[in-house]
């Protein structure tokens, strides 16, 4: 595509099928303690890591 570049991302729709193992870090447990989001968390699913 000459006008559009698509960045490689994780498909959220696909993750609905096999997500939710719950092993990832609790958001507020790391640095913020006051203003958390979840976008900066790492997926820790073994299944995801194999992909």
């Amino acid at each position, binding site marked *: *595509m*000459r*006008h*559009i*570049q*698509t*960045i*490689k*991302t*994780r*498909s*959220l*729709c696909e*993750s*609905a099928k*096999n*997500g*939710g193992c*719950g*092993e*990832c*870090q*609790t*958001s*507020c*447990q*790391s*640095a*913020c*303690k*006051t*203003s*958390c*989001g*979840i*976008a*900066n*968390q*790492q*997926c*820790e*699913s073994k299944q*995801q*890591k194999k992909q």
Partner: protein
Amino acid sequence: MIHQYKLGGYNIVLDVCSGSVHTVDDLAYDMIALYEQHTKEEVLRQITEKYGSQPEITAEDIAGCYDDITALKEQGKLFSPDTFEPIAGTLKQKTAGVVKALCLHIAHTCNLNCSYCFASQGKYHGDRAVMSFEVGKQALDFLVANSGTRHNLEVDFFGGEPLMNFQVVKDLVAYARSIEQESGKHFRFTLTTNGLLIDDDVIDFANRECSNVVLSLDGRKEIHDRYRVDYAGNGSWEKIVPKFQKLVEARGGKNYYMRGTFTHANPDFLEDIKVMLDLGFNELSMEPVVAAEGDPAALTEDDLPIVTEQYEKLAALMIQRRKEGKPFTFYHYMIDLTGGPCIYKRISGCGSGTEYMAVTPWGDLYPCHQFVGEEKFRLGDIWKGVNNTSVQDDFMACNVYAREECRTCWARLYCSGGCAANAYHATGSVRGVYEYGCKLFRKRMECAIMAEIDRQFSKSE
């Protein structure tokens, strides 16, 4: 739903529900903005009118761009519908009854007297106290017993100042390690400290046992010492900086965060980030203060444009330093577009009150550290478990679709509905919306995604 913005020389288009990210030229940027609202003929007419006189743009080119947008839509990478709401409750129910993280309030006391402290100088509006080993041990047993099939369990030593009760911290870690094998669990410990009591023993312990340490430093000496003072009113900057430098140097690459708070006194917090960098720290976090409206430390509406500009300049500084071979990380700009959270996490949020709880020195359970001292939020205790199920149900019902304002927000699957404590303090309800925080969050996400795009493009050059 899509979100379009221009930043750092990039035209960026986010497809909210698929998580897709695109960079586009001006023609495609304008065409995507028109695409859903107009017929094909009208879109092509408007784009031709604006770009048709440019020699390198042909009619075929414009039509081809339209077809590319249509193809991305058909692939589910643009204008994808939100199909998650009907399953949001089911996804969050996956965590029902499972606790995987505790914030242990190891000391409700502090050797600093910071007036901006959300924990009221470590006392959480109550009495000074330290956690006994017996209470801490029971908390760890409670965590193991309620963690279901979760393997990784997180325990943060928090306060007040946890190093004022350091022996109990060490004893609890030793106990936890002793039960890891039999319980089939792995503990990850973190420590949040103001640094005053750091010595070689603490450094050795933290670097051996803690997956992360959070070190409180506000940046410039005059900014730090404005609030972070001892009970005699003396600033702490000169005492703690050499200790932090020694700890970080000895850490050998293990994670840490130099965590600052910015307030109305320093909305220009990038200057504080630069001081942290000059001191040799490169894993940084800088958080907006949590303060009641009217508190002199609280950020104001006038601060907002300054703060948002600082976030943009911070992203530019990150890019510049990476290209100079002097990279640093900023907690809120760490985004992994391929290895980030699944939709379950994005809908469920931080897990406060369900997966994550705070434990007071007396063994009481609260939804998170920010609710400690708010008696009506007390969930139960570590001996009998949760008995205030109505409050826990409120937190269980907190997902990204629980707040009307979030439904139309492009950032909802990056923020997951935000912080329940911030919402409560701003609106009186854990399902309210702290709009000021939302504005900051959206700006941070725009910056984080732009910086990540730049990193990827730089790598492929």
